[in-house]
């Protein structure tokens, strides 16, 4: 049974992430009065990309070639280290939230380097914007988890999830503040509105897309898959850190299946929330974004002062 649970934990994020991306796009399309693509379309895109050849720039070095593998690896590792459906794996040594934050920073570092590597104007300023935003989100990211870890007296994500699920009602004010801060950080890290438009064709408005304009074939598939994984990881963190009911500690088949079902439902609700948010606001001008990120930081700091 252990092996089955471990396999599910490892494989859940890469398998499910394109589905939630498809759901997000479908809901956005419905808001735009269109039918929109099938929710399984991202799977088909990935499948097609793995079957295509690649064209690589002659200026690219080994960093360009290795970066997609490294970024995808990091998302798989992160997917396996966060609480998804079970708190039974809590002695996982990679679940320290600082390790999570800095692994995300490692993947952003290499993505930004890959963007500069090809020597085109798009990649360069895409990397510049991405690193600017990444530098500013670290504060809010660390602080939002810090607030929760003071509540749980541990920095292990699994312990935080168990602790939040048994909290009395009056301590929810700081958690609401932290949740708002976390949502802002999630939107920034996963390149959604108001920070970045994932469907834009205008290079001047791209942040994440600009760095991957040069990738093709299987490397593009890996990077797109990694981006979908990152989205699901952040959604799972949002769902399981702030609404941890449904995580099971038992290992029998029925609780695992029901925990998986509750997980899917929670993430679907969050996805709908992000889709509604994306359909109602516009992308902000780049120099309005740092205000948002500092707000996220300050909200979490206030929450810490309230908790302690």
């Amino acid at each position: 049974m252990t092996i089955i649970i471990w396999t599910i934990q490892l494989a859940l994020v890469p398998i499910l992430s394109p589905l939630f991306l498809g759901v997000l796009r479908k809901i956005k399309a419905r808001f735009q009065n269109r039918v929109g693509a099938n929710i399984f379309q991202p799977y088909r895109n990935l499948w097609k990309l793995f079957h295509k050849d690649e064209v690589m720039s002659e200026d690219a070095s080994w960093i360009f070639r290795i970066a997609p593998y490294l970024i995808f690896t990091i998302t798989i590792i992160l997917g396996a280290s966060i609480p998804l459906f079970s708190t039974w794996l809590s002695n996982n040594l990679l679940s320290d939230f600082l390790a999570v934050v800095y692994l995300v920073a490692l993947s952003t570092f290499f993505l930004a380097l890959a963007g500069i590597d090809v020597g085109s104007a798009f990649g360069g300023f895409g990397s510049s914007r991405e690193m600017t935003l990444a530098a500013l989100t670290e504060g809010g990211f660390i602080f939002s988890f810090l607030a929760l870890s003071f509540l749980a007296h541990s920095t292990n994500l699994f312990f935080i999830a168990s602790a939040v699920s048994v909290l009395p009602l009056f301590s929810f004010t700081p958690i609401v503040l932290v949740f708002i801060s976390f949502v802002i950080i999630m939107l920034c890290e996963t390149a959604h509105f108001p920070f970045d438009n994932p469907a834009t064709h205008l290079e001047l408005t791209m942040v994440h897309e600009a760095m991957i304009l040069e990738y093709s074939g299987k490397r593009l598939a890996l990077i797109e898959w990694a981006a979908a994984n990152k989205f699901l990881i952040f959604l799972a963190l949002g769902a399981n850190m702030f609404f941890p009911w449904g995580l099971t500690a038992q290992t029998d088949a029925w609780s695992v299946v029901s925990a998986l079902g509750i997980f899917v439902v929670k993430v679907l609700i969050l996805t709908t929330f992000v889709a509604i948010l994306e359909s109602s606001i516009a992308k902000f001008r780049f120099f309005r974004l740092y205000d948002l990120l500092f707000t996220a930081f300050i909200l979490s700091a206030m929450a810490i002062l309230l908790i302690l």
Partner: protein
Amino acid sequence: MVMPVNFLCNEEKIEIIGGKLQKKIQRLFNGSLAIREVDTGSTNSCEHELTALSNPYYDVERFGISFVASPRHADMLMVTGPVTRNMREALIKTYEATPDPKIVVAVGNDAINGGIFRGSYAVLDGVDKIIPVDFQIPGDPPSPKTILCHLLKILVVIEEKDHGENK
């Protein structure tokens, strides 16, 4: 190869054409077709029609077709415009930047043989003089429904060619 402008699929509804298109794309392209549109100096009329394909009325995304920003991400290049002299090199670079397997479609009469600009000193009279063109969609400009019809016919031809090769 050029299709006659007036053939039967013009009578059908978009949904029916689209359904057939989706099935072909599923079989031939693993369910997703990425199109990159290249404007080599056109009057923008074809671009308007191609853009109209993504609006809520035609909504080509539901059939698995999407428009992408970079030729590196594309399977099909739709070229419009009679290829002005200044755009010649850009067109060649775009063609080389697209990974295999790729399909090149010339959209609009300008792209097929120069159209209303034919014979001018500033244009090179059609895309097939610069890069190898696989299919052509006639019209000045072709309406979105016509483009969809022709796309369907293109996929039928590709399927038959594949079957022929496999035999």
